[in-house]
């Protein structure tokens, strides 16, 4: 075991993935300068320029090439510098990457990974700070994965590379350096499609993912002081969503608070709430609460703290569901 931060864990996972000769990394500034978040630091030296490719500023070109590599036998991992810069590649992702399996009646698949740093954290507003995971989650054929710990980041990234389908791999910018934790020396994967009960509890289920796990954990700790025993659930995989684990928890606790940083309207929290209402309605003791970002644009640094759901907002939502 070594203690790593999330960026280091991802770096280790990429390094490990490159042991498979089919794996190729592509992205802007990822090779010689190690990427804007230094996640691919040192990998060019180790694996060479045929495997770690510095590209032009051309998101559609990057994803298109990765897709072509994937259908022709490689396992590419493309990096988008920020979530807000992934949209020029939407045509490739939505119209082609996600559909080739269906369109080719299963003869083809595009086993590629698109790494996307997302969420607030550097205070630069808009494109550099947004959380638009629901856009990707809405597209049939795309898996959407989002770790909250270095351990899961490593294991999920390797699982994403192995996965036969395309995976949008979201990396919480706020956690790159602040999330630290033990990562085993031996390679491992964390199965895609499994949520994790991070802390068992009996009164209420807090369901969160990615960067919001930090606030969710702090809220659970604070709630314990008022004798509220919250179960904390890390979604880890948005698509395919682990409905089973969520329902098992919510039918037990009877209460659910869903937390995400993305805007509220048509956010993935709405899907989670709908799943709970459809399948666990009669176990609910209170309506599901959503704690989310606002239906507005992510602001500059000073106001970021008002945009990103705070520990206080999560705690307050839990108190509200406990009152009913």
């Amino acid at each position, binding site marked *: 075991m070594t203690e790593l931060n999330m960026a280091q864990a991802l770096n280790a996972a990429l390094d490990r993935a490159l042991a498979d000769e089919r794996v190729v990394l592509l992205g*802007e*500034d990822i*090779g*010689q*300068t190690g990427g*804007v978040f230094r996640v691919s630091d040192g990998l*060019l*030296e180790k694996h*060479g*320029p*045929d495997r770690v490719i*510095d*590209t*032009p*500023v*051309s*998101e*559609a*070109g990057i994803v298109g090439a990765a897709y072509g590599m994937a259908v022709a036998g490689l396992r590419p991992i493309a990096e988008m*510098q920020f979530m*807000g*810069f992934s*949209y*020029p590649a939407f045509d490739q992702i939505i119209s082609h990457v996600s559909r080739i399996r269906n369109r080719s009646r299963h003869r083809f698949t595009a086993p590629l990974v698109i790494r996307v740093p997302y969420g607030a954290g*550097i*205070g*630069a*507003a*808009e*494109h*550099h700070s947004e959380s638009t995971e629901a856009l990707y989650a809405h597209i049939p054929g795309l898996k959407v994965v989002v770790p909250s710990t270095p351990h899961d980041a490593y294991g999920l990234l390797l699982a994403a590379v192995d996965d036969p389908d395309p995976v949008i791999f979201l990396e919480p910018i706020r956690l790159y350096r602040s999330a630290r934790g033990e990562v085993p020396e031996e390679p491992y994967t964390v199965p895609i499609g499994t949520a994790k009960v991070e802390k068992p509890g009996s009164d209420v289920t807090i369901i969160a993912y990615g960067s919001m796990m930090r606030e969710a954990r702090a809220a659970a700790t604070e709630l314990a002081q008022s004798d509220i025993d919250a179960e904390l659930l890390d979604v880890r995989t948005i698509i395919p969503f682990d409905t089973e684990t969520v329902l098992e928890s919510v039918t037990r606790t009877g209460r659910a608070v869903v937390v995400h940083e993305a805007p509220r*309207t048509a956010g993935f929290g709405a899907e989670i709430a709908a799943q709970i209402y459809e399948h666990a309605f009669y176990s609910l003791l209170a309506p599901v609460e959503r704690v989310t970002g*606002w*239906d*507005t*644009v992510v*602001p*500059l*640094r*000073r*106001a970021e703290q*008002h*945009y990103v759901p705070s520990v206080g907002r999560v705690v307050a939502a839990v108190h509200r569901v406990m009152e009913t």
Partner: protein
Amino acid sequence: MSTDRAEAGRHDFALRPSRPPAPVDHANEDLPIPLETRVEMYRLQQELRQFEKRAYDLFMQNLVKGTSHLSLGQEAVAAGVAAAIRPDDYTFATYRGHAHTLARGVGMGPVMAELLGREDGLLGGKGGSMHLTSVEHGMMGSYAIVGAHLCIANGAAWSAQIRGTDQVAVAFFGDGTTNIGAFHEALNFAVVWKLPVIFVCENNLYMEYTPSDFVTAVPHPAADRAPAYGLEAVLVDGNDADAVYEAARKAVELARSGGGPSLIEAMTYRHGGHSRADPGKYRPDGEVDAWLERDPIPMYHQRLLRLGVAEGQLTEIQQEVAQRVDDATEYAKASAPPGDAALMTDVWADGGSAWRN
């Protein structure tokens, strides 16, 4: 191919040969540019330089919110083009847009306050450094998505064409931007519809950290592609305001008279890193020094003296600008941050962000 590429930089861009600037072309001194226009370009360059130096100091004091991208070293491009257009023309810039905003005459105070994320900022403290916009000044926006605004500038130019005004639109962008699809889409549209638009590529040799020649098919990312769109290859010294002015003047004349678009590649260099977090370590030894030697401003100062402008007049300009930068700083610091409620405004026409009536 890939072996050469690896050898070329031995996995370290800083080990590639440095790319020094071309020497000053003193013949530009003889261009028929009115002296008052030249003095105006000197004043503009002083404004951009002194303003951004102050902005840099304020980052260092952690007063600037978010990230930011400076044009220090590239001022002659903004100044040269600004002096060649009319107040009712349109300009579009990138996240590296402080210079282009100020060059349109937008007040230093509101721009500085915006960088600090204050209520009296140009955008009420909501946009910050990367999104400076002032429609009243024809500064139609700073676009932080590479390439997007080239297509948008076409639209503004097209509007002028359809409305029958003789306004032109100018889009500034970098060398790295020439590799995104939008660049090519924009050029084709502009040529097919003969739009009054001028694309100005500020070739500062780098994308963020990657030298753009490392990933670009041709040595001159804009000029070498111009002929493919039936345009003249225009390559100018972007560190010489006169050269930029002359190229811009011709392009504006062509556009205003219905002759269609131009693509100008201006060779320049950013003195600092890409953004505030970047020390710029990927640049070969001596490259920055060589370009500092070709700083556009001292060169232009000397040229104006040779053309008969009194040293005293230039000193006066410098001092007057310094005073305005001080005033802008005070103005910005004195302004309050926007209230929390500002977060919930300006999404919809009714001023709010609620999605239900």
